[in-house]
């Protein structure tokens, strides 16, 4: 079986974001780019599945839509252990044209399992995985916290309110994964970093599909009122403030 993990290239989560061009664009100066945290967990799980030979996973590929500036992030994924990468050479406008371009680029690659993180930490859209499934006409499960292969069959855990469901699904199939899919993201070892240099990144030219939405501008959050401190010896006073001032009880 072949696994595809879809990767988004995002600013490191500790970045203090700023905007330029009348607040129309992210100020990229000084930003460190990383694999989106959910996608990193998805990649880790894909590699864990491949490590166990009895699962019969031949390759783990990472897929991405972006310009050549994303290559360092794709190399990181290769260093962590992915076998190869596919990059659609396109500056996307929104989730719709990301998913559309990706679907066209991989339609004939016959992946059996496609893993997408449930959200990207930049636009917090939670949409690419579902859109990709629909473009490809594949079944999908969203909110997946476990992907296992038991006796050649896929066994998926979906998180639901107050519990979980265990599902069986056919291949090809898309899992939109969340917390729990892997414990800690896998870190690249020196050997992996060396090997990543020679692993292939296949560049696919885009169809230039139009976006359906457009960011007009960004705004910074309004500063919150300064914190009101209560003496630790008089902690009970907090409860009366919450009751009478904040009126939350």
């Amino acid at each position, binding site marked *: 079986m072949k696994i595809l993990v879809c990767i988004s290239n995002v*600013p490191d*989560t500790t*970045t203090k974001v700023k905007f330029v061009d009348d607040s129309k664009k992210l100020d990229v100066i000084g930003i460190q780019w990383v694999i989106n*945290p959910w996608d990193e967990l998805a990649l880790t799980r894909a590699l864990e599945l491949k490590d166990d030979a009895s699962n019969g996973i031949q390759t783990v590929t990472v897929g991405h839509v972006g310009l050549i500036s994303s290559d360092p992030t794709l190399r990181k994924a290769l260093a962590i252990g992915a076998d190869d990468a596919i990059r659609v050479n396109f500056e996307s406008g929104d*989730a719709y044209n990301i998913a559309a371009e990706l679907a066209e680029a991989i339609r004939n690659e016959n992946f059996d399992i496609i893993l997408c993180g449930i959200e990207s930490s*930049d*636009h*917090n*859209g*939670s*949409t690419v995985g*579902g*859109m990709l499934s*629909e473009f490809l006409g594949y*079944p*999908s*499960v*969203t*909110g997946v916290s476990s992907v296992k292969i038991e006796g050649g069959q896929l*066994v*998926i855990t*979906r*998180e*639901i*309110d*107050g*519990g*979980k*469901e*265990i*599902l*069986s*699904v056919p291949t090809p199939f898309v899992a*939109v994964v969340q*917390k729990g899919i892997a*414990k800690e993201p896998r870190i690249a070892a020196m050997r992996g970093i060396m090997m990543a240099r020679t692993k292939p990144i296949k560049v696919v030219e885009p169809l230039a599909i139009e*976006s*359906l*939405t*457009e960011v*007009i*501008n*960004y*705004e*910074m*959050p309004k500063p*919150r009122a300064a*914190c*009101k401190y*209560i*003496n*630790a010896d008089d*902690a*009970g*006073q*907090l*409860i009366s403030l919450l009751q009478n001032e*904040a009126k*939350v*009880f």
Partner: protein
Amino acid sequence: MSVLVFLENWDGKFKKLSFELVSYASKVAEMLGQQAIALSIGNVDASELEKLATYGADKVINIENDMIKAFDEQTYTSMIAEVAQKIGANVLVLANNNSGKALAPRLSVRLKAGIVSGVSKLPLSLSPFVVYKKVYSGKAFANVSIKTEIKILTLAQNSFEVVESPKTFVHEKLDIQPDGNLMKTRVKEVQKQSGKILITDADIVVSGGRGMKSPDNWAPLVELADLLGAATACSRPVSDEGWRSHDEHTGQTGKIIAPNLYFAIGISGATQHLAGVSSSKFIVAINTDKDAPIFEAAQYGIVGDALKVLPKLVEAVKEMKSK
């Protein structure tokens, strides 16, 4: 033309989130001079469906049949798309929870409709159609325009006030037979905990971090939560250490929540943690380190040892309740 709002049910019941969705859809419909039509899929009693009219649904459509008991993403997408086309919906509203995250993007492709997810306010303008949403995990916001004729919005939970705007209950049962061949996923087993308040639903969340020092120290935190009818939560290190269960983890990669009141007890407030809780209306921070970033996000703070402060809070809440 109309606004279509999709409502999931929990064992045949709706909850506050459902009424937030209907309230929101009804206000959008009002802005557009259209009707708000609620769609429920699954076995829900008429008395429960009637509640949707209370919050402004001009009409309630429900689809019931045995095939749809399990939530299959392709089957549900087909049914909602069919209803959307039948009633000429030009705005679709879904929840920004796991089912909305499953269905909204598929509907976007099916209907070629632009989508903005996690909205918390009414559209800022109708032409162009502009909505406001959180980006960069709460570190910024964006005004996004949707360029297509049909628009899809997913509403962030606890972000839009439930407003009653009673309408006459108009109910239509639709007999849509889902295509059995579509249903490729199969639920083998359901494991549910009962009686626990869901973190995402709770008005008050009491959350502990590494400052709780040991998994054995949680009793006063749980007691405080119980007294307040609150859900318990924790920071990532706490769930990674296995002190508390993973489904309690709030933060960027865990649960994103927006309660009225969030107690951050012994939590320093790393960016990743704040990303999950910054939409809370009030944050209370209790931490020994006066420079901890959590105090910048909080409205009320106590610099002190969580384990010494918690018993005092428990006493104060008991006193408040006895009055």
